[in-house]
């Protein structure tokens, strides 16, 4: 009997938040709300802390480009990787490991290519980074197809394998010539990605992230291949029974593409930001990517927005720690709470509608 009352509220709710701008505004308001609550609860002055956060993230052209956007690039690429995999129904939790595999491969190629022109060496190195990211994800795909190992488990495990592999590489074959520091030799200037604006650290990786996100959005929406991937993610059994879709082939390809994107994130981070391979090259970008993708509701264009939001939070969080004495951990708590709220908000009306139907 309560159906007629409950039903109208749903379309209204969705309609209000349908425009991307409204969604972004709601998300920002939510983030600020949670942050202020937490600051008050932990006894910090929200005014001081928020000013520090804003300064660190958007306070200057330099802060916005070199702190926020520089962090947003790997988050967008790995977020895109996760979003594509999730859209295919694959819970790829391994973007971190695939990123590391890509970074390591790129470092190895550039280390060997010292006498090759950068015009050839850089693209080849990025490509090899993508391929290695794809192969790293391919291991999980193989385990899934051949032995039924759940990718949630295998990709997490492979993250650690990648981390320790990098640890060995930077103390072994790829260690810098003086053999003092656990890192690879710094890249020659020619092998570094060009920056977009002089005086900032923002590199052309941003163009790649925006371009690939747009491409992925268009591909998912408008091509047969993208539709096929979505059918497999929504209902593999119907995709096979009605659409005669080769489900395992689509899954494997989705896994490989997802891994390639995460591998590219690693390659771009190495050539654009760190210029050398070391163990802590990623502060968990591949894990934050899951939040970036979920918050964007797995929409590739939305990933760009949420990547900037998380980039800003992390850049601002550093400033907040430095200038207002607020531990950066608080930012991670905020991230986690937003994810929970958004997921709960997505689920609740749906379940209520199901129940009353």
């Amino acid at each position: 009997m309560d159906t007629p009352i409950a039903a109208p509220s749903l379309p209204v709710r969705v309609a209000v938040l349908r425009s991307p701008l409204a969604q972004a505004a709601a998300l920002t308001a939510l983030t600020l709300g949670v942050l202020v609550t937490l600051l008050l609860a932990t006894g910090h002055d929200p005014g001081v802390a928020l000013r520090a956060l804003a300064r660190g993230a958007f306070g200057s052209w330099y802060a916005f480009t070199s702190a926020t956007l520089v962090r947003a690039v790997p988050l967008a690429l790995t977020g895109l990787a996760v979003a594509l995999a999730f859209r295919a129904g694959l819970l790829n939790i391994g973007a971190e490991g695939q990123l590391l595999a890509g970074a390591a491969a790129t470092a190895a190629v550039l280390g060997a290519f010292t006498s090759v022109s950068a015009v050839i060496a850089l693209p080849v190195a990025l490509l090899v980074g993508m391929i290695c990211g794809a192969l790293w994800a391919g291991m999980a795909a193989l385990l899934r197809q051949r032995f039924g190992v759940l990718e949630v488990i295998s990709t997490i495990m492979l993250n650690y394998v990648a981390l320790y592999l990098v640890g060995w590489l930077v103390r072994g074959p790829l260690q810098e010539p003086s053999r003092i520091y656990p890192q690879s030799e710094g890249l020659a200037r020619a092998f570094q990605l060009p920056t977009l604006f002089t005086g900032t650290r923002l590199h052309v990786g941003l163009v790649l992230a925006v371009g690939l996100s747009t491409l992925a959005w268009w591909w998912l929406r408008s091509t047969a291949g993208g539709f096929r991937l979505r059918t497999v993610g929504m209902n593999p059994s119907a995709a096979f029974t009605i659409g005669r879709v080769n489900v395992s082939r689509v899954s494997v390809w989705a896994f490989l593409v997802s891994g390639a994107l995460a591998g590219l994130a690693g390659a771009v981070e190495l050539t654009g930001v760190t210029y050398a391979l070391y163990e802590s090259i990623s502060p968990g970008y591949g894990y934050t990517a899951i939040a970036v993708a979920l918050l964007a509701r797995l929409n590739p264009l939305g990933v760009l927005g949420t990547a900037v939001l998380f980039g800003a939070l992390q850049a601002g969080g550093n400033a907040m720690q430095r200038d207002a004495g607020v531990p950066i951990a608080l930012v991670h708590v905020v991230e986690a709470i937003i994810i929970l709220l958004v997921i709960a908000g997505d689920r609740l009306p749906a379940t209520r509608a199901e129940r009353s139907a």
Partner: protein
Amino acid sequence: MTASLALSLRGIHKQFGAVRALHDVTLAVRAGTVHALLGENGAGKSTLMRIAFGLVRADRGTVDVLGTTCAPPFTPSMAIAAGVGMVHQHFSLVSAMTVSENIALGSQGRYDPATVHAQVRRIGERTGLVLDPNARVSELPVSAQQRCEIVKALARDARILILDEPTAVLAPDEAQALLAWLRTFVAEHPSHAVVLITHKLRDALAMADDITVLRRGERVAAGVAHTFTEASLADAMLGPGERTHAVQQEVMPRVDAHTDSVGAHHNVITADAIDVRDPRNVLRVRGASFTVRAGEIVGVAAVEGSGQHELLRAVAGMLSIANGRLSAPSDIAFVPEDRHRDALLLDASLTENLALRDAGTRSGRMEWRTLATRTAALLTKRDVRARDAQVNARTLSGGNQQKFILARALDDAPPALIVENPTRGLDFRATADVHDALRDARDAGIAVLLYSSDLDEVLALADRVLALHNGVVHEVPRDRAIVGRAMLGAA
């Protein structure tokens, strides 16, 4: 008399929503006997036994186990304590665990592998149901998994064993061995009893002491096995053929009128002695030969688990043929019985659901605008009630979902259509609409192969009937009694 009854259910009533599952059913299982509970799909056999095991609460009626009345609330743990053991059709084993772990599962206290191993071995020696206690259930063949279920019940001192369609998953010689074992079980323990839920007449006649027959939730026959024949049991299970379905009264004459015109058309599907194995490599269809011509509906009549799912999927090109020759067009449309699992993207628009039809072969750009127009036209043409082509499939009623699925299947005029339980779960009106759509398809020259678990639906729609029993296909005259006996394996 009551003292010698191992299990007695009296005056059981059970209603599920608007459906009357059981009406005043009585079942008396004598101690020291094997009792067969016979009936078609949906006759209420499983519900009755789930009541005896405490899984379902009866609306009215009493359950006596070994002379003691079980007062409500009667739960499975009380049933187990009272000495009832049930082996479900779909096993309730944890496949990643070992045999002894499964057997210990649900009991109280500490798990001591050595004790359980010894218990499994002891039961094996005593009963001949030998199992390796360390074997992982997922690695056991189906017959051994079933043995594990029985041992699990025996380990809890079950004195009344209820087995739900136990032979459905077994090869013929395995089934023989199981039935022989059940006979020894009651012969050695005069106070024990076995209830065998089955729709196999031969098993019932050969192995049971007593037989009870249910039809549409009522007990229609009960007595000592040797007072029945295959024919009398088949008639009791299927009823005298009175037209109980409102749908059927409406449709029968039209079908009869059409039948004469069939025969002039060419064969669209030709199966020549095909064997089909299921994904677990069990032989499900043996040497099936039949044809489906353009402009006719060929109905498959079969009881559950006879190989119909595999037969239909093989013809639809989704399972490969193990032996024999099959000639069928590649663009056959298939309407599976489980709409939500196999036919729809519930959270995608109807337009996207239409596009699903050739998702596997499409390439290049998606013409969403054209597809949306086509979907909208389809909704109007086939009278599918939906707000527009952009609503999610989930928002449609079951009847409209099924009408949409059929409309999609017929959209690009396929040469052949395969439908499986097309009206499962639909109300009267939706059922009539689906039937009309199937007849329209037939009249448009499409070759239709139909399976329904409801024999009356098969008879109402089909121009010709194939009876499928235990994987073997026979074409039979479209006569209720003959089809019924053939699908039950009665001569």
